[in-house]
């Protein structure tokens, strides 16, 4: 294994001995021989044992889902694909279900009045809607100096109807005559 080490130092002990024409070749070959020396170094003792021990003590990868080897491999690729598609379908379906059930906040209702004078439509003839929350228009009474007195019935103006005496008597007899019939009805 260590066949080169003796030749390299012999060459490097007098590096200027090469001719000028072959200087570059000898320089590059010397460099390669140095690298070759490094490449031929012996590995430390017990390297393999340490590596194997390290592999045994290394933490194994945790598996979230146990996947049997018989289902794995090249033959079970379609099963994995189907399982992945099913998971994606369930997740997407659940998300869609939540999305469709949650309703967004209702926007404020606004009555859109038709434009006055729109072509082909009815016009309001300039009428303005008065909101019901307001009282009607209050007409201000003109202020006067003399308050208006209410009209009173004058006694002097009361009419006195003079009926003839015979008519009064006949009326009285009629009332007396009609009384027994009223009592008899009771």
């Amino acid at each position, binding site marked *: 294994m260590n066949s080169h080490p003796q030749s390299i130092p012999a060459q490097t*002990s007098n*590096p200027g001995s090469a001719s000028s024409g072959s200087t570059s070749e000898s320089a590059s070959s010397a460099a390669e021989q140095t690298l070759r020396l*490094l490449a031929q170094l012996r590995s430390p003792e017990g390297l393999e044992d340490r590596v194997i021990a390290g592999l045994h003590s290394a933490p194994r990868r945790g598996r979230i889902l146990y996947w049997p080897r018989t289902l794995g491999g090249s033959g079970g690729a379609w099963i994995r694909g189907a399982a992945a598609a099913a998971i994606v379908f369930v997740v997407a379906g659940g998300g869609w279900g939540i999305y469709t059930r949650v309703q967004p906040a209702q926007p404020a209702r606004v009555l859109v009045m038709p434009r006055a004078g729109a072509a082909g439509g009815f016009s309001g003839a300039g009428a303005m809607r008065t909101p019901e929350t307001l009282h009607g228009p209050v007409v201000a009474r003109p202020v006067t100096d003399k308050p208006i007195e209410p009209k009173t019935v004058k006694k002097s103006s009361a009419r006195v109807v003079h009926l003839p005496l015979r008519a009064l008597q006949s009326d009285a007899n009629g009332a007396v005559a009609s009384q027994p019939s009223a009592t008899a009805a009771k």
Partner: protein
Amino acid sequence: MSTSQAIYAGWMEIQNIPVDDLARTQAEEAQVAALVTQYAGALYRVAYSVLRNSADAEDAVQEAFMRVLRHRDTLDEVRDHRVWLIRIVWNIVLDRKRRAKTRPETDDVAELARVLPCGGLSAEEIASAAQHHAKVLGCVEKLPAKERQVLMLSAFEELSSVEIAEVLGITESSVRSRLFRARILMAELLNHSRSPR
């Protein structure tokens, strides 16, 4: 078959699935352990050539095999395990070097003299060789990244140009052209470092 027999048969079938899994897991772990035994040294050398720190290189090898263990299901689909593993560890060490920006311990000449084998040489020769190696490695660090990577991987005799191309994810012709440029640049850098003296 009676109902109870059918139920028992079904239970037995259900019981058999984890047993198969356990056996398969153990087989895969044994396969990973075999990969460790076979390629840990090569991966260490690849990691060390970039990081030039023994502890970091060992950590990189450990991380590479951890990744292998994580993807042990796909081990059977890998064509060339060696190139695949080298590619993994190569990406790990490049990422670590990019993040850490730590000073390699082999920038120290004394450490380099200790690490690199120099059998049969006097102490003075060893020190001179270590200085030369440190200078060469300093020039390698100055190379553009693409050329430097190809040059470092070409130092591994166990990797052909096709395998280097596979590790780097480029074509073989790109490997050759980059290697050619790297050699020219390296020679220029080394001559430039010698000329002031």
